[in-house]
C-alpha cells in the first residue's frame, strides 16, 4: 500500500513538474523543426527506397519518440501536426493520419509519465508498438471510411514487414531524435540521475548500506 502511495505521489510530482514547464519554447521549436525535416526526408527520400517490398515509415517513430522524451501533451500535439503535414503534403484524406498519430504520441507520452522506462531497448519496443499501432489504426480508420480492402494475408504480410522494418531502424532513429531534443528537455531522467550520483549524492544501494551500519 505504501509502495503504491509512494509511486502515485512520485508520478503526480513528476507530472506536476512536467506541467509547470508547459511546452518550453526552445523544445517546441526543436520539435517543430525536427518534424518538418523528418516529414520532408520521409516523403522525398525514404519512401522511395523500398526495403523488402515496403517503405520505411519514420513518422510514427518520430511521434512516439517525441512523446517518450517530452510527455503526453507534446506527443499528442506533435502527432497531430506531423499527421496533418503528411496528409497535406501527400493530398491524403485530411485528419486520418492526424487522428492516428495523436493517439500514438499521447500513448508514448503517458508511458513515459507513468512508467519512466529506462531500459536501453525501450525505444525498440516503443518503436515497434508505435509502428504497429499506426498501421492497425490507419487500417481501422480506412475500413470505417469504406475503403474496399478486407483483411487478406498479403495485406497482413505488408503490415508485418513494415512494422519489422520500422523496428529495425528504431534504435538509430531514437538516438537521432534524442540528440536533437536532449538540450531542450526540461527534465532528462538520465542527466538527473547522473547528476545525483556524481555530485555527492548516494545511490539507493549505498544509502541502504550506510543505514545498516
Amino acid at each position: 500500500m505504501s509502495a503504491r502511495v509512494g509511486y502515485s505521489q512520485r508520478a503526480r510530482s513528476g507530472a506536476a513538474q512536467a506541467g509547470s514547464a508547459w511546452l518550453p519554447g526552445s523544445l517546441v521549436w526543436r520539435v517543430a523543426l525536427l518534424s518538418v525535416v523528418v516529414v520532408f526526408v520521409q516523403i522525398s527520400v525514404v519512401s522511395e527506397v523500398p526495403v523488402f517490398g515496403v517503405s520505411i515509415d519514420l513518422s510514427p517513430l518520430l511521434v512516439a519518440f517525441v512523446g517518450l522524451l517530452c510527455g503526453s501533451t507534446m506527443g499528442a500535439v506533435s502527432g497531430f501536426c506531423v499527421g496533418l503535414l503528411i496528409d497535406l503534403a501527400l493530398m491524403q484524406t485530411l485528419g486520418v493520419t492526424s487522428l492516428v498519430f495523436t493517439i500514438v504520441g499521447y500513448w508514448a507520452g503517458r508511458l513515459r509519465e507513468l512508467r519512466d522506462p529506462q531500459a536501453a531497448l525501450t525505444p525498440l519496443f516503443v518503436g515497434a508498438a508505435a509502428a504497429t499501432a499506426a498501421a492497425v489504426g490507419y487500417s481501422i480508420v480506412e475500413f470505417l471510411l469504406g475503403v474496399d480492402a478486407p483483411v487478406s494475408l498479403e495485406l497482413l504480410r505488408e503490415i508485418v514487414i513494415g512494422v519489422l522494418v520500422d523496428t529495425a531502424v528504431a534504435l538509430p532513429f531514437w538516438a537521432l531524435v534524442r540528440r536533437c531534443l536532449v538540450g531542450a528537455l526540461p527534465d532528462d531522467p538520465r542527466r538527473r540521475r547522473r547528476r545525483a550520483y556524481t555530485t555527492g549524492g548516494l545511490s539507493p544501494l549505498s544509502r541502504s548500506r550506510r543505514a545498516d551500519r
Partner: protein
Amino acid sequence: MRSQCLSLLALSGGTLFDDVFGRSLLVYDKTVRRRRAVLALLVVLSLILLTAYFGEAPSGGLHSVQRDFLTVVSPIQDGANKALKPVRNLFGWFGSTLKAKSQNAELRKQLDKLRAEYTANQVNEHSYRELLKIDHLDHELSIADYTPVTASVTYQSPNIWYSIITIDKGSSSGVRVNDPVVSGEALIGKVTEVVPDAAQVSLITDSAVEVTAKISATGTIGMVQPEVGAPGKLLMQYLYPASSAAPLPGDYVVTSGTVASHGVSLYPKGIPLGQVTSVNEQSGFTSVQVSPLADLHNLEFVQVLTFSAGSRAAALNSVAANLSPAHPTGSEEEEAQNGEQLASTGGGG
C-alpha cells in the same frame, strides 16, 4: 482523497490548501485536466477534418487548402528532392544490386522471346496499317497524338493505403487532371490534382483508378482495378470476352482506348500496363490477376501525356469527359447487363 480535496476546495473557495501537498495536488489536477483537454481537442479536430474532407466535393474548401499547400511547398519539395537525390541513389543502388542478379537471367529469357515476337509483329503491323488505310479506319487515338511532358517524382506516399506520387510539373506545363502518366513504356496512372508547378498522380494500384484494358493475346476487354486486399496487385475482370481463348500467365495487358464510365481518363490505346500472373475462375466469372509492368515503388522520372487544345486527343477527351452519366457507353446499368450476360453464358473468356 482527490475527490475529498476537491470538495473541500470547493467549500473553501480554493484558499484552504496552502501546504505543499495541497498545492502539488492542485497543480497535478490542473495538469491532468489540461492534458486530457488537449487530447480531446486534437481528436475532435481530427474527426471534424476527416468528416468534412470525406464529405466535400473535390472542389471544396479543404481540397483547395491542400492544393494551395502543394503550390507553396512544391518548390521546396523540388529542392529537397534534388538535394537528397544522391542519398536516394545510394540506397537505391544497394537494392538494385541485390535484385539485379536474379532479374538478369529472367530478362534474358524474356528478351529472346520478345525479339522473336517483335520480328513477327513488325510484318503483321505493316499489313495491318495497309488494311486500315484501305478501310479508312486509321483515325484511332494513339500515344503519338499526345505530347509527353517529362517530370521527376518529388514525393511518394509511404502508406500502403495510398498509391500516389507528386511530380514537379503542373498546369504551367500543360498538365491537366485525368492526363495519363507513363513510365518507360508502361502506364502507371493518371493525374488527379494539378497546381501550377506540381501535380498529384494516382497510380494504377490506387483504389481511385480504374483502367479499361484488354489482354493483348486474346483481345478480351475488361476493367483493371487494384486487387482488394492485395496492395500493389491488379485484378482484371472481364466485361467483353472477345474470344474463347483463355489468357495465360505472361500475357500482356494493354489499354483498350475506350472509357467505361463517365468522367474517367481516356487512356490512349495500346499502352502496356501489366502482365497476367494467374487466372481465377470463381462462380462462373473469370478474372485475371495482373502484375504492373512498371516498378511503382521506384519511380524517378515519369511522362505525362498532355494534349494541346484543338487536337484530336483534346476532342476525344472532351467527348469522353462529357458523356452523360445517365446514358454512357458503359454505364453501371449496362455493366450490370453485361455482367448478367456473362453470368448467363457461363462467364466470358
